């Protein structure tokens, strides 16, 4: 902790800066340059990952008939915009995207906040029944969602929340996985002495949480936020039950697309693209900041 590596004395943080200790150990002393093999493998992996998205674009820009040809088309065409129009006509995709942003945003904020609070409590506070409570929390991970759907729906109906967004937001406002994840992170990343220093400086537990725990937990919070947002955005089962196509999230809206005697593959694909683009754009633009934010906190003082 007291050794300062050469070159670490600068204050700016480079965006792709792996925590140093780990990087050194992992490479076992070899130089940090990647060879041609690494590049080839990474390129292949990237291509494989991007292909489904590309296919969505291709399929979304043709008609059902064109898609059925052999060989199938390999390039996108201007038909994409016709299909966009068709999709927008068939389902309230604009509203769905807005709903999804609200739902996923609220779930993300709630999950990150509550999981960090609970994770901190389980990791660092002494209270009676801590072990039992933690076991219970983790135990809920074993219960399949399908099992709780009916009671949950009855509760939602009782509250007259059917087809309202809070019916989707509330049940997932905190996740057992998130609690466990934050707990594990804080156990290793947050030294007890830091909390004790806070107490000596006169901070209340709440103040310690805001001023010390949250800054230290930021990298893990960013990761949890990303995971939670994507999961919430892609969630289909429960929103389909709790909402209707009149007030849908993106996934529910997509379910109503292209449904006819013959499913309109192209329209479905175009709609899917519309529903995926916002997330894609956000993560492309913010990706660097998110990674940067993660790494900024990850280098321990």
């Amino acid at each position, binding site marked *: *902790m*007291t*050794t*300062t590596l050469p070159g*670490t*004395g*600068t*204050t700016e943080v480079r965006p792709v800066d792996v925590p140093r200790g780990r990087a050194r150990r992992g490479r076992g002393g070899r130089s940090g340059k990647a060879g041609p093999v690494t590049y080839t493998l990474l390129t292949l992996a990237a291509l494989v990952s991007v292909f489904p998205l590309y296919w969505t674009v291709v399929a979304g820009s043709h008609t059902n008939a064109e898609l059925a040809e052999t060989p199938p088309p390999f390039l996108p065409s201007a038909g994409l915009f016709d299909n966009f129009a068709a999709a927008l006509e068939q389902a309230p995709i604009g509203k769905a995207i807005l709903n999804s942003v609200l739902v996923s945003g609220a779930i993300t904020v709630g999950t990150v906040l509550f999981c960090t609070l609970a994770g901190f409590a389980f990791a660092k506070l002494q209270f009676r029944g801590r072990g039992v409570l933690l076991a219970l929390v983790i135990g809920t991970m074993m219960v399949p969602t399908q099992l709780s759907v009916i009671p949950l729906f009855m509760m939602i109906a009782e509250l007259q929340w059917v087809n309202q967004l809070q019916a989707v937001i509330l049940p997932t406002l905190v996740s057992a996985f998130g609690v466990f994840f934050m707990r594990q992170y804080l156990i290793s990343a947050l*030294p007890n*002495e*830091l909390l*004790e*220093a*806070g*107490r*000596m*400086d*006169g*901070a209340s537990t709440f*103040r310690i949480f805001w*001023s*010390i725990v949250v*800054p*230290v937990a930021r990298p893990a919070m960013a990761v949890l936020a990303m995971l939670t947002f994507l999961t919430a955005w892609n969630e289909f089962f429960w929103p389909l039950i709790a909402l209707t196509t009149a007030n849908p999230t993106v996934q529910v809206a997509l379910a109503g697309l292209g449904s006819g005697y013959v499913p309109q593959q192209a329209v479905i694909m175009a709609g899917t693209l519309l529903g995926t683009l916002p997330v894609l754009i956000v993560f492309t633009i913010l990706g660097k900041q998110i990674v940067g934010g993660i790494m900024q*906190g990850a*280098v*321990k*003082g």
Partner: protein
Amino acid sequence: MATVTFDQATRSYPKTDRPAVDALDLQIDDGEFLVLVGPSGCGKSTSLRMLAGLEEVDSGAIRIGGRDVTDSPPKDRDIAMVFQSYALYPHMTVEQNMGFALRLAGVAKSEIARRVAEAAAILDLQDYLDRRPRALSGGQRQRVAMGRAIVRSPQVFLMDEPLSNLDAKLRVQTRTQIAALQRRLGTTTVYVTHDQVEAMTMGDRVAVLKDGLLMQCDTPAALYERPANVFVAGFIGSPAMNVLTGEVVDGGVRLGTAVLPVPRDRLARASGGTGRVTVGFRPECLELVPPGEGVPVVVGVVEQLGSDAYLYGTVGDERSGAPLQTSDVVVRTEPRHAPEPGQTVWLRVREDALHVFDPVSQVRVD
């Protein structure tokens, strides 16, 4: 500024069979620099943390400035602590680290800035106020940790091995700086270390702990001159005091075939009818005498330090020179005329420098 009192303070951790700190009685004066020293696991940190309010007190009481704080939370005790790992807030700049406590206490911004600047000037940290801890060297971090404590002008400073993460040279430098700073501020300080040299050089008084029990608390000189028991005798001083146990004979204690003279009254009280007695003498309190007088020692190793030489040997047979007893003896001598390894030297203990202990209770006898 305040006095600090430990009154029979005891701490037993759950699921342990003996207390980590056992009925500790300590009275620390206003403005005093008290050092807690002892081997690893003796309860130094626990004692300090009890005073800080970070550890429960199971029985007994702790008072700061006459006020009973046994059950008060840390923030109501008006104390500041320097941690071994420094525990600097990684996301705050040096300035924010130092000002955090004042900010929490609702001190005005301008006042915080003034006090932080003042502390930074004392500790030579002005150029680093905008840096984060990770961009500082170990020594600088240590000073920030000190700064965080002094900006608060607390009643008491607590320091738990604040120098153990520094390299040897910096440690010696910082040691004197901390001692000087404490004298200048006049704040009552409790300082924990396992290094007896640190303890002896820094403390107004030194409290020696062992297995949660207070062995002795006195000035460095008194600890050195009159250790209260065998443990303190062996712990304080480097190289350690020679401590040997032998059979009581007329007028002294038998070491090998020689007899070390011990005053009769002390001999009688120390042996307590067991027929044995423990004696101690420091390496620098031995004189070389002509062969045949005093106690023979076979030299094993000679350590040349330049200013001194230390002989490590075993008490040997007067006639054959062969070791009879495997107790090691350390002798400080003139470096230029040091004997060779394998040689036998004859030693006499300066009379005023002989320590006598009861071999059973290990307690000093005067």
